Structures are given as C-alpha cells and as structure tokens.
C-alpha cells in the first residue's frame, strides 16, 4: 500500500543523503520525495511517498526515527492528510488541438504559463491522482516534456505540526 510520510529533519550537512541511503540500503521503495526548509529556521521537511506492507512501513518509520538528524516522523494514513503535487507540462498545441488543450486546462483548473505557436506549457496542481488524470487526457495530443514535484502533504484539522 502507498503511504505518505512526512519527516522533519535538522537542516544538517548530508541529511538528504542519509535518508536516501536508508531507503536504498534497506531496499525500501521511494515513489517520490520532496524536501524544502520549513518556517522554523534550521529545519526542513521531507515528504516521502513509499510502498510496503505493515511490517515494512513499521521498519521505515522506526529506521527514519533512528537517524540522528530526524526530529519527527508522521505516517499519514488515508484521509488524515491533504496531499498536493505540482506538475509542469509541455504539450504540443497546433491548429485544432490548441482549443482542446485549453478546454482540458480549464476543466482541471490548471494554468497556461508559456505559449508558442506550436506548444503550451501548463502548470497543474492537485493531488497526484488529478495530475495523472490531466496527463492521461493530454498524452494523446502530444506530451513533449513533463516535470512533477512529487507530493507534499499536510495534516487535516486545526492542529499544526510545528516546524
């Protein structure tokens, strides 16, 4: 099962490679990983999307916690978090397909951020399933380039997770 895990880390030298090494060294999967500083100085937050059975997920959580630079680990179970991803999509848009691309962009509440006579570049955000859906519609029209950030996640409700 796919899990989204948030990891709060000290912004120390090499912390990303420690986390990445842990996953590769122990044979855990990473579907996506994103990392950036938080609002508290010295801290970064990683969002890791991973897969595995309960036993593996338990090990992933424990092993992450064991890293000296890791402050906190939260495994968001289904529904407890909102996750969003950003995608930049360069798509062929010529003649009759130009209008079709615009319609799809409109339906998905995405944005055109660059235009040429032969292409559109689209910015789309949403949960990863929504990104998958817009890509599925755009692919037949000619997908030239795709960049996805991977998910970031935040817990639902009023309670904030410091950092």
């Amino acid at each position: 099962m796919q899990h989204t895990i948030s990891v709060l880390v000290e912004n120390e030298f090499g912390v990303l490679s420690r986390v990445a090494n842990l996953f590769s060294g122990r044979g855990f999967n990473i579907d996506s990983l994103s990392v950036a500083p938080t609002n508290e100085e010295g801290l970064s937050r990683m969002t890791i999307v991973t897969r595995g059975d309960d036993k593996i997920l338990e090990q992933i959580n424990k092993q992450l916690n064991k890293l000296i630079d890791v402050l906190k680990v939260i495994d968001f179970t289904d529904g407890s978090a909102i996750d969003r991803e950003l995608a930049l999509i360069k798509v062929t848009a010529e003649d009759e397909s130009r209008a079709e691309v615009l319609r799809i962009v409109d339906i998905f509440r995405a944005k055109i951020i660059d235009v040429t006579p032969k292409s559109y570049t689209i910015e789309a955000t949403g949960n990863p399933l929504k990104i998958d859906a817009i890509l599925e519609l755009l692919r037949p029209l000619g997908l030239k380039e795709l960049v996805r950030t991977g998910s970031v996640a935040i817990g639902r409700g009023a309670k904030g997770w410091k950092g």
Partner: protein
Amino acid sequence: MKMNGARIMLECLKKEGVDTVFGYPGGTVINIYDELFSFKEIRHILPRHEQAGTHAADGYARATGKVGVAIATSGPGATNTVTGIATAYMDSIPMVIVTGQVPTPLIGNDAFQEVDIIGITRPCTKHSFLIRDVRDIAMIMKKAFFIARTGRPGPVLVDFPKDIQVAQTEFVYPETVEIRSYKPNLEGHPRQVEKAFRMILESHKPVLYVGGGVVLGDAADQLTALAHRLGVPVTTTLMGLGSFPGDDPLSLGMLGMHGAYCANMAMTHSDIIIAVGSRFDDRVTGKLATFAPHAKIIHVDVDPTSIKKNVRVDLPIVGDVRDVLDKMIKQADKVKDKVTEYSASLVPWHEEIAGWKVKHPLSYKNSSSIIKPQFVIQKLRELSDDDAIISTDVGQHQMWTAQFFRFNRPRTLLTSGGLGTMGYGLPAAMGAQAAYPGRQVITICGDGGVQMNIQEMATLVQNKLPVKIVILNNNFLGMVRQWQELFFDKRYSQTCMELPIDFVKLAEAYGAKGFSTAKPNEVEKVIKQAFKEKGPVIMEFKIAREEKVLPMVPAGASLNEMVLNA
C-alpha cells in the same frame, strides 16, 4: 586560551576521559600528530595498518566499555578504517574515528588523498560529522562521544579538514550536550514490564534468549539475578557469551547455527521466549517460518528497529536492558511466594532440557595422535586466568571457542559477530591488552584470519603488549571447507592454504617468541610455556585438518534440524 584546531581535538579527547588512541599519521593529520608530540596525557599506539588500528580501538571498547578512539589520515588511511568501522557498527560498539580531510577549499576537487569518507561510511556509522569551522570542534566532539556511547552504541566518524586543524580559537568544552532530534528511550515502560512479568509467570517452558546488548548494557549481574530468581534457563548468542556464566546449571550455552542441541531444542519447544538485547539474527533463528512455533515472544531492546524486524513479537519493551531487568527483579521481589511457586513448577521443563543435554551434549572425539581443536580450547580455558580476555577471528576456531570455552564473565570475549570479520582477532586483542596491561589477553585464530593482520605482531612487540596468539592451523580456510565438504561434494575450491608457514620463525622475525606442536600430549606444555613468557607469543597447534564444527543447522533449515554427526 587560544589554540589551534588540532590541539583542541586532543583537549576534547582528554575531556572525554580518553587515555589511549590508536592511529596512523599522514598528510592531513600531521598537525594532530605535531600536537600529540608534546601532549603527554594521551597514549598513542601506532598499528601497522589503519584497519588494525580501528579493530584495536574496537577491542579496547569491548573490553573496557569505554569509547574506543582511532585516528587515520584522509584518502587511503580513511578507507582502510572502513572494515573496522563496519565491524563495530554491526556489533554496536562505541567508537569515535577521527579522519583527516583535505583543506576545506579543496573538498570536492579530487585533491591528493581526498575521499568522501562520510559518504563511504554513511551506512556503517551511527552518525558522522564534517567539521567546517574551528569553533565547532568542541561541540561536535561532545556530540560524537555522546552519540557513540548512548542508546544503542555505535561508531561515529568525525572528518577533520586540515585547514581547520590549523585555525585558532578559544577552547571551551561544553558541560552538557542536548540533541533535540536524538533522545534514546532508556526507561522500559513499567506497565509493559509488569505485563511481561505476568506473561512469564503463566508460562511453563520459558527461555531467556540473551544477546550482546546485555554485555554492552553492563547488565550481566541483573540478568543472572533474574534468571536465578525465576529459575529460567538462559541461552546466549555469540555476542551474549559471558553475560551469563557458562558454568551455571541454568546455562544452555550458545544457540543458533552452531549452537548447543539443548539450546536449539529449548527454543523450539519453549512457550515463552524472553529476548534481552538480542536481535533474532538469521544465524540464530534458522528458518523463520518454523522458528519457536509455540512461543510467545517478549523482546527487550534499546533499539526499536530491532523489534519486529525479523520475528513477530507479542510484547515489545523498548529500553535500556539494565533498567528493564532491574524492574523485573523488583517485580519478582514483590511477589516472592508466587515466584517460588513458579520456579518450582518448572521442574518438568528442566527435566526435558536435561534429557536433551544428555542425549547430545557438545562433544568431540579426542585423539592421542592428532590435536583436536576443541581439546586446545578446553586446555586454554583450564590453564588461563579467570579474568582472561579472549579474542577470536572468524570461522571454525571462533565457533569452537564459543562452544568449548564456557565464558563466565562479560567483556571477556571479543569477537566479530555481525560482520564476521577475518583479521579482527589479533588487533582486537592488542586493544584489550593496551587497556589492561596486567591481564591475560589471548587471541584464538585460524591460519587464514591471523594472516590478514599479522603485521600487528610488530605493534605488540614495540608496545610491549604481551598478547598470546593461538593459531589453530589446519592449512585450510576451515569453515568454508566445511561447507564445501557438506554441501558442495568436497570440491575444495581455493580453501586450501597450501604453503606451510613457519609461524615460529615468523614470531621470531618480529622479535617475539614462537612455539609449535602437532602432538596432543604437548598442548598443555606449550600453553604453560607461552603463558610464562613476558612478551607476545605465537602458539601454533597443527590440528586435525578436516575437523568440523558441529552441531550445525544448515543454512535455511529449522533450528531443530541440526546435523549432529557428519
């Protein structure tokens, strides 16, 4: 007072109570060595290879319980420490390794003797630091020692660029250290302990299954006290040997691949396993699907990742083993009558175990014409001091030592259990002897492993470290040969060390003494003579070449499917 970074490093070591370091000079640590020249509070031992220096620091740490310290220069010096670091990591040994690094502005430029040692050692260190400012040295060293020795101990590497060794600042050593992201859970949850205790009192066939955590956590007395209170039999892993007296009637000896028949049978038939500071390694459990099928499992460990990693656990207790065992003893004392009753109820279980002990005791067929390795081990035990420290290499001799030496005290066996590092024994003994000049330190090796760090003979002689080196010589890489005999139709591919080495002359070449014999009736004489010598000695015993380590659980088989005679 202002001082340079190199001097600050030494002052930090002194503040941490370090009295001995094992190190090898080189271009990027030359400033540290220059400061060391006039720094008399720290004894520096120069090994002949950085790997040996790291193993020596490891042996020092295992024997004393203190943090072992090794120094190496950048590049090849640093990479030579890797096997030593990985060995320590697998067995949770507290160490701090200081490596020189090229000057900060050159890092990443493929400078001479530059290597990304932090990257290389990331998977085999508990943590690592790159010092980037002279003002950070003191805090980083404080943290390094704190991390190395607390929680589940382990090696910490500090990479120290040359320009920072030269830079100057005030030296202030921090009184305390606080790492907000590192808070090992040391206190076992009282309710979990109570629950565990209730579970034990309901059981009929309990086993205490004890690992290196009890040795590292200095909890051998507590373990022995609890086992005696409850009357529960104890089996230990290789790393746990010595945490419970091997001579105690409740001792089942070692379990696992080359464990005692009674220990493996007791595990298989038990209804509760109390795992303390052990991690259900594959060499211990055999085939997981059939491991201890009737047992509930209580697992006490300071490292949460050890729990439920390999086997299902009915009751986890995360905490320092000594704290948890102390709490269990308190529980036992609260309900003395119940405990007495429980202990008496275990008679049928003890009888069943006694039956296994009688049926297949650890044994071997002795010979009057050829030396049996097991006989040498028994003689060593008989003739050595009670507090002698034994180190081993890896292979057959290691298992024979584990089976037949019957360790009674913690920290008297130094052996590479997790990584299984050949070449460990001699330098580890060197480290232990440096810590305890007055104690008998013996390393038991095979002819294969001893040659992996034989150059340390020079270090022993130079530093007057009177380690007694026992070589059980079968001119084979015996353990692999045993596997080839049993599972590969005796196709002895590259396991025969055909060139006979004259170990007596070799000892003499280094300025040490050497004895050699192939006669069983000379074994005792040689050992006695060697023990009388004031300096290091090699004792070579030419042993029965194709003697096997038995019993043996073949890889992938269940614990109770032991090969007893082959």
